[in-house]
């Protein structure tokens, strides 16, 4: 019988990460898309960094930030009496950083796609910035935001390197499905590895295929 604990853990991680990414990703993408502040290119580059960095490099730095004697790590121990490193919470933080560009980039593209003319028109009518955002930008970006969330979710499901660096391999806590597959392969349990891999493959394909059929103008091909 196939043990689905790791798969369930991955889903939990991906769901929480996606939710957090939505909460911070929308305002961040809005700022990056519309602000003319001089720090936009700098912050934009930091956001994109996880896209190009090897996951191990990212994991290594996250490990430095979250280890017990770091500022964040020791604060977490004081507050919760548990360590941040090799914990599910630590994994969530790492996943948020790792998947941030996959959520923010499509959102920026969607916001930019609305066009200055539409926003200017609303402005000239007399609508406030917040009205323009809530009543015009957000409803018009619905599809893009859904795509971004799904991309963030699927990407978190598949992460390996970062998880291994900051989460380790603790059953029920940090042993997500990608790690579990690796363990199976290492122990030459190829049948189990195959089953879990297939579930992930079919699921990921189904989600991307659904997205692409529902959003023909904005195919996800990269």
């Amino acid at each position, binding site marked *: 019988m196939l043990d689905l604990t790791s798969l369930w853990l991955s889903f939990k991680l991906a769901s929480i990460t996606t939710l957090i990414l939505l909460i911070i990703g929308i305002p961040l993408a809005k700022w990056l898309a519309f602000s003319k502040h001089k720090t936009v290119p700098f912050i934009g580059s930091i956001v994109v960094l996880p896209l190009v960095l090897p996951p191990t490099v990212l994991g290594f730095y996250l490990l430095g930030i979250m280890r017990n004697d770091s500022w964040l790590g020791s604060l977490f121990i004081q507050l919760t009496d548990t360590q941040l490193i090799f914990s599910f919470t630590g994994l969530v933080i790492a996943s948020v950083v790792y998947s941030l560009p996959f959520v923010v980039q499509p959102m920026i593209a969607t916001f930019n796609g609305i066009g*200055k003319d539409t926003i*200017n028109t609303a402005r*000239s*009518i*007399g*609508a406030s910035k917040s009205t323009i955002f809530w*009543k015009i930008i957000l409803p*018009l970006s619905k599809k893009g935001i859904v795509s971004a969330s799904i991309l963030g979710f699927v990407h978190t499901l598949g992460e390996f390197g970062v998880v291994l660096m900051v989460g380790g391999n603790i059953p029920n806590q940090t042993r997500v499905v990608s790690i579990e597959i690796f363990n199976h392969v290492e122990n030459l349990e190829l049948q189990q590895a195959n089953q879990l891999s297939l579930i992930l493959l079919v699921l990921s394909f189904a989600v991307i295929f659904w997205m692409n059929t529902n959003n023909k103008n904005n195919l996800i091909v990269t």
Partner: protein
Amino acid sequence: MKVNIQSSQPKYDYRFNVDDRGIVGVYGISGSGKSSLLDAIAGYQDDFKGIITFNNKPLQRTVKCSYMNQHPILFPHWTVAENLYFALKYSNNSVHLMDELLSTLDCNELLKQLPSQLSGGEKQRIAFIRALLLIEDGSLVLLDEPFSALDNTLRKTALDLLNQYKRKSLIFFVTHDIAELYQLSDNLLYLKDGKITYQDKTENAMHSQYGNLPLASKITFDGDKHIIYADDVSISLQINPQSSIVHQINSTIQQIDAKDDICMIKLKLNNGNSLYAKITKDSLNRLNLKENQQIVANFKATSAK
């Protein structure tokens, strides 16, 4: 309104004064900077430096105005009705006015449609209604070729409507249709290479022959004011009852201005109106026309705009 604004890249330099009420016609060839002028006044362009004073106050960067783009922008996720109600929220005007405008411009059937279901002309009518709904006393109205997709009947209705608003707002009106400009505007701005190269009252501009402004006259007949191009007016020595031309008007030659092979002739019609005619030098000589001579001015009814 006092405008003195410049941008360096691309290079624009707009300086002019106009009254705070009335219609300002904006004319120039494509790429002369007409749309950029409207964008700059509306505060859509960031790279402009300078100041615009309107109603004796400096204009804010994000000014509330009735702006109608060349390709009208309606919010795509809302029906026509929702688009109009959204504008109405920011205006003192009533739903009653909206209903009235919808009927006048024959748009009642469109209320439940989404913008994507509308034709270009329908979009222009809805955007025009929205622009009118936003007009209050002292408003700024910026219209960029607003009626390019309307048929003649609707265009006339729209122009008549616009005319009613010129006493309470300042309306900038960009169009390539010179007759529309002559007919409607009080002042005319002529743009070339991002600069205002000519500005005058429209009644003077139509006689100025500046740039490619055609020589024309505004005359009243059948109770309406019409624009008649000098190109469409011919001269005969007497009334010809056998001619298909309806408008054969006894006139006096006031002035003859001969340039090269073409002569501009200013006529004083017997009803007091002035009318310009353009004829060749050959015709001038053949008919032996002189100043103060009594002649007959002819123009076809179809040439009246």
